[in-house]
């Protein structure tokens, strides 16, 4: 229990530090949102019009200390204000409309990549030097080292354009009304295949290699030898003795990855026109949209911290040593 409380205290501190950085960093960037918006659309405006826009969007600026405390209280009440690059849509609405798709795509591909990668890693390490162990890691690392953009474009070209078996864009067929029915769910799933597959392909190698390497180390432990000497079935030794212990680093990196999913998959969104927060985040940074940036970074921070906390909880379950530490 005291372990969990200590962790919780640490998370609160980390949260405060990150929201403060979140406040400071955008304000250190040169320029201001209105001129950025103009340069993006390459419009010319009268000086009075620029002033009017600044007032309208509330980017006049003020003393930084009161602004900081105002920001803190707004963060705690969940009010992020209005997005500037999407003015006057509230930040929470911008994020809420895109986050579900980001989460769907991110979680699906992460779960597939983790399960497949770890299974392959376990098998490869168990039959060290076997066929799987000598073919899969180099192949997957080779695929993983392709530029993602290129791989995604290639997959889209082959499956979408040439063979016509996969949808080419968006999260579901245009014109379909979202609803909880079989037609819609299947359509969403079909649209998810290519984007998720490409992400799984490039990340699979990392998961597999990580698992394989820790598993090899675990396999040479004395207790594995002991288990074999006791005559336990190899299957049981592999999963319950070796894999369970080798999995700890994998769980940690999975926690990190869950957190970062919230940041969106920018390149996937660009290639497959998948609606998500990645492109929006890029736009927010380029457009110096402080409120939206703050809202998104905060969501990412919160997601990373929560995911890590959950991993801590799982650790307690997986690794008895932590409970005493």
């Amino acid at each position, binding site marked *: 229990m005291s372990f969990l409380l200590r962790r919780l205290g640490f998370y609160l501190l980390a949260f405060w530090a990150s929201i403060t950085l979140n406040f400071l960093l955008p304000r250190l960037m040169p320029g201001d949102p209105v001129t950025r918006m103009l340069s*993006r659309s390459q419009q*010319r405006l009268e000086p009075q019009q620029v002033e009017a826009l600044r007032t309208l969007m509330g980017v006049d600026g003020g003393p930084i200390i009161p602004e900081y405390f105002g920001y803190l209280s707004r963060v705690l009440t969940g009010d992020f204000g209005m997005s500037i690059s999407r003015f006057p849509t509230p930040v929470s609405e911008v994020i809420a409309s895109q986050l579900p798709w980001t989460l769907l795509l991110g979680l699906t591909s992460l779960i597939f990549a983790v399960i497949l990668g770890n299974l392959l890693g376990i098998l490869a390490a168990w039959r060290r030097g076997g066929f799987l162990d000598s073919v899969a890691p180099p192949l997957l690392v080779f695929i993983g080292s392709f530029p993602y953009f290129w791989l995604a474009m290639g997959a889209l070209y082959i499956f979408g354009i040439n063979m016509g078996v996969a949808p080419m864009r968006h999260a579901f067929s245009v014109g379909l009304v979202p609803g909880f029915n079989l037609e819609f769910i299947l359509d969403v799933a079909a649209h998810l295949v290519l984007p998720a597959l490409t992400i799984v392909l490039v990340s699979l190698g990392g998961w597999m290699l990580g698992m394989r390497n820790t598993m090899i180390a675990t396999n040479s432990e004395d207790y594995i030898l002991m288990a074999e000497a006791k005559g336990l079935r190899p299957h049981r030794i592999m999963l319950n003795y070796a894999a369970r212990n080798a999995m700890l680093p994998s769980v940690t990196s999975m926690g990190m990855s869950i957190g970062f999913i919230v940041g969106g998959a920018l390149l996937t969104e660009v290639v497959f026109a998948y609606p998500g927060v*990645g492109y929006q985040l890029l736009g927010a940074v380029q457009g110096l949209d402080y409120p939206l940036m703050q809202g998104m970074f905060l969501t990412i921070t919160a997601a990373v911290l929560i995911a890590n906390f959950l991993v801590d909880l799982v650790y307690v379950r997986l690794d008895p040593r932590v409970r005493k530490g």
Partner: protein
Amino acid sequence: MIIKYLRRAHLAVAATAVAGTLALSGCVASNPGGTEGGDGSANAAFLTIPREDMGTFSKNFNPFSPNAAPMTGQSIYESMLVYNPAGGDTVPWLATEWSAGKDGKSLAFNLRPGVRFSDGTPLTSKDVKLSVELQKELLGGYDYLKSIKTLDDSTIEFHFKQAFTPALYELGQQVIVPAHIWSKFDKPGNEENPKPVGTGPYTEVANFQAQSFELGKNPYYWQPEKQNIGGIRMLAFAGNDGANLAAISGDVDWTQTYMPDIQSTYVDKDPEHRHFWFPTTGAEINWQLNTTKKEFSDVRVRKALSMAVDREQVVKVGMSDYAKPADCTGLSGNYDKWRDTAVVEQCDWTTRDVEGAKKLLDEAGFKENAQGQRTTAAGKPFTFDISVGSTSSDWLSVANIIAQNLQDVGIKATVDSPDWAAVTASYETGEFDTGIVWTANAPTPYQYYLNLMGSQNVKPVGKQTFDNYHRFSDKKADELLNKFVAAGDEGEQKQIVNDLQARYSELAPVVPLFAGPEWGAYTTENFVGWPTEDNPYATLSNRAPTTVLVLTSLEPAN
């Protein structure tokens, strides 16, 4: 499992296609454009348009918002008149006629009878008054306005502080919102206006998603005989690639995304239906020289640099031959009818002339040294940067060509290409050497010459300005510009613009490069009646005031 999904998806696509074919053969004309819209059978009736610059859409139909959803100012809200840069004509729209006061200090519009908003309320002069007031309050501008009088329900009169003729197009193209709704908003600037009520042809928002939305017919439109398409469907794309892919695979009807080599990538896939038209009515693109720097304050240097540029090569290589080289009036295709042939005939500094450039540089004191390099009077090499935003790949190659051209006259120029935001920031404060820049595009050349030669927006280096980045002004041009805004009839305006052109040609305030093209491509597979070179009733832009002209001209094919 994946394969199973794929197979099902394939079946679903086939089913939709069958349904679509059935719809095509039967009920297209009667389909109201899908307020239901979910069964796939309505697909054929929608005019589908991609937006490559919006990864996702937000439900914001506030015409006073700089980030309103696409089509807000095109198909939902309309203006009193529409200026068509492709044909150079002005189309009366919500107003039937207008007249300026004798002294040029007032302007009256007569509204079209029988126009109703999409909730059935009639359009009155009060709506116009409120719209102009809201625009002024929220977004600024209209500083010349003294008062607005609504004489009766269909007549509105604007009074100005001083004569200002360009007001016709500014006021005339103001989108009109209904006063009975907008006067009730506490903070109209912060209103998202999710259920817009406007006078336009397609106002009914349906099936709004982050990736797409649809606009259905306005039930009270004033020209019901022109609502021949079932509705509009907008698609969101995070970048050119996705949008171009959709266009190439025939999933959209109308696109204006930049496509390299459009003939072979797009048109040749279906030459019978697919077409493109790039009239050079876009803004003039200039190479501006910071005239606060000593070397660029000399007109001989500016002209010499201009003569060093090979505009043919710039247009051909840099702009994929989509643009037209500029002449010494600096007027783009949009302003063709204002061009004075007497000035054009004497153009001598906008065609490539390396010898002439060298001579002018010699005269200005930038002599060649032993290594063939031009040096300043102080004996230092004459070098400078050419700024351009890194994302504009076409302009970047333009800048590189200019840098190459300059080597022929012994000048070393370096292309500096950070992010656009950084480039614009340096333009605004005047802390740049030279740079590629866009210009104003308005119905008359007034704004264009004001921005390039007028003293109104010239600020000292270090102070922000949003116009006249190169900080050049001329007393005589100021006088002409003031005369122009007071000039009542077009003949007089034309004479003044002739003088302005001559002045521009004499002073070379910037180096004009080329007139930018207005992109646009379409397919006649589903809809016909597009503007073309032979029938330039609008440009092919789907985000301009003329867009509504296209929307009300299209008809289903067959």
